[in-house]
């Protein structure tokens, strides 16, 4: 990139996108629990209330249905609310508002009342958090027509995807991999930019097997690819980025090329988003498949307490083992 860049963490990318979009468009509002004075429990909204005041950065009462429900109203009168749900495990009280209203408003109003609403939330495990703080529920949202579900895995994408989400006239569920909020930095342009929604990206090209992941799982996925490279297995790696509506072209092109696919996510396997991916690949690239698609996912259990979460979360070894199964098929 020729323009000015800074080294940012993923969460800094998010904060910067919020700040720049608020500067750019006075209709952008932030609301949620502890997003003001406290700057959010992860500090994603740090400094924003100081910059924009409490009419644009609203600390709300502790009620998720309320947060999303009033966001619907705010969007109806022309605002572009960015609501924070403190952890994905606490999105359930807002499910009625999200599924019965947010996702459907454009359609129910025959296109006249779109919902330019972003619902941000940290998701996923790996930080030794208490119960209900490690959930990944992209699948149930991905079964809901009308929603766009986005999960970045890098600082650059986090900023660009969030910018695109805020500018989108459709509601976006923006899931933030809190495990890697601060785990690395990368060059991020200082000015605003969009990373387009609905586009997956090939993170690494390869010929023997396709690894598909997103969010915090990109790290063990890339580690697995590197490990495999040392064993002379060439893995192509796809970062889904937009879970819904998903980018079928990028995924099928790779699956057709390698004929072997391993899908990785940390949510429970049964009826997880991996099911849709696996189904689509087998349905549309059957004759290219050299081995059954493999899914490496969280167990179909409650997400365990801190002492046990490392057993639960997919890791390099488990991904490599799945690749080896597809190679041995």
């Amino acid at each position, binding site marked *: 990139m020729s323009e000015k860049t800074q080294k940012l963490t993923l969460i800094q990318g998010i904060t910067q996108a919020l700040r720049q979009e608020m500067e750019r468009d006075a209709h952008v509002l932030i609301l949620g629990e502890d997003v003001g004075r406290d700057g959010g429990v992860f500090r994603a909204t740090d400094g924003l209330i100081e910059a924009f005041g409490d009419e644009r950065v609203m600390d709300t*009462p502790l009620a998720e249905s309320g947060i999303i*429900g009033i966001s*619907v109203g705010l969007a109806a009168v022309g605002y572009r609310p960015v609501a924070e749900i403190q952890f994905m495990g606490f999105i359930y009280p807002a499910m009625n508002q999200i599924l019965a209203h947010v996702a459907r408003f454009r359609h129910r109003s025959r296109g006249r009342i779109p919902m330019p609403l972003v619902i941000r939330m940290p998701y996923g495990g790996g930080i030794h958090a208490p119960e209900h703080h490690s959930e990944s529920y992209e699948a149930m949202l991905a079964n809901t027509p009308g929603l766009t579900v986005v999960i970045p895995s890098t600082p650059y994408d986090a900023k660009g995807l969030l910018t695109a989400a805020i500018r989108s006239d459709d509601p976006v569920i923006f899931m933030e991999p809190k495990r890697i909020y601060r785990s690395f930095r990368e060059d991020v342009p200082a000015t605003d930019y969009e990373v387009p929604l609905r586009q997956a990206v090939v993170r690494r090209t390869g010929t023997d097997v396709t690894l598909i992941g997103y969010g915090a799982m990109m790290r063990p996925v890339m580690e697995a690819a590197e490990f495999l490279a040392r064993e002379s297995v060439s893995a192509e790696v796809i970062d889904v980025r937009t879970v819904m509506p998903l980018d079928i072209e990028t995924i099928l092109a790779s699956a057709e090329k390698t004929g072997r696919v391993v899908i990785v996510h940390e949510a429970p396997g049964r009826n997880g988003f991996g099911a849709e991916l696996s189904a689509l690949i087998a349905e549309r690239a059957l004759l290219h498949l050299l081995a059954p698609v493999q899914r490496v996912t969280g167990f179909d259990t409650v997400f365990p307490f801190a002492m046990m979460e490392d057993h639960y979360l997919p890791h390099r070894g488990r991904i490599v083992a799945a690749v080896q199964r597809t190679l041995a098929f």
Partner: protein
Amino acid sequence: MGYSTIFQGETRRLDILDMNGKVDRKAMPDIDQDQLMALYRSMRRMRTFDEKALKMQRQGRIGTYGSLRGQEAAQAGLAVHLSEDDDWLIQSFREHGILMARGVPMHTIYAYWKGDERGNLADRGIRCLPPSVPVGSQLLHATGIGIGLRKRGLPGIAVGFAGDGATSEGDFHEALNFAGVFRARTLFYIQNNGWAISVPFQKQTAAKTIAQRGHAYAVPAMQVDGNDVLAVYEASRIATDHIRNNHGPYLIEAETFRMGDHTTADDHTRYRSPDLVAHWAARDPIDRMRKFLIKEKILSHADDEAMGESLTAEIEAAVKDLESMPPPDPMSIFETMYAKKPWYLEEQQAMLRSELGSRAQESGS
């Protein structure tokens, strides 16, 4: 130390026009004869609309329908205070009276109940949200709109509608609480018709009234006889003035009665006694206003009859409009899900198009 009182509150109710058409002169609002007649006509118009809808449902010309019979005063008395240009209606599913009074074309309301999505959004401007079926959930939208109107410094107010049953949902609580905290320009307008389908209000809550709940959120509140169009008029005037003057949200409980079935899919005789229904029939909002207007010589029997005929003609015209709508386009299923259609919706649409094409061919067209 020891015991101290940290809260004291009271809640008031307003009654003006009694079941016999007598008014309390002291409480009478400042309102002229034309306005009185307009309120009466508005109620009769709703009733005529409603009766026609029930008839059409029986004839299979529309689908399941929710009657508002008995609730006309509760809707007409409020509607006159709302501006078509500025104010927002956030309806539940029994507010056709309000919609009609606010100028929504009646055939679009019928279309909604016919199962035609073109009836989902009133086409008289965007300041009316589509009906909300998930009970209570719309109240939060009313709060959000009311907050937005305040933020933007706009003159309008938001009116969120719900029934007595809806007040048991958590969203009622969150809507009033957020409205109190963020000083929403929102009127919460609860038509307490005594029943949530088969569940009487006494089983809905141990509290005696809904209005008293305002104290839980520091939201001022009033109960009103919802079958008394003059009391509704006056209470609504007070509440809307309060909100327009930036004094924050307001809660009105209009006590009324649903005279018929919950919807045409219901049979209210399973859970209500004829006596109870008769009790309320004697308190009909239109009858008592008619008695008053005739007693006051504002209305003659002949005028009354002429009004009935003109309303019937108006409603028949609306039915004609309804029935001359071209059939909805099946392709519209796919058109408004997203700003830009995803690939799988393109595929699904293509499939449906080809199905319809081959069916059309089969049928020889």
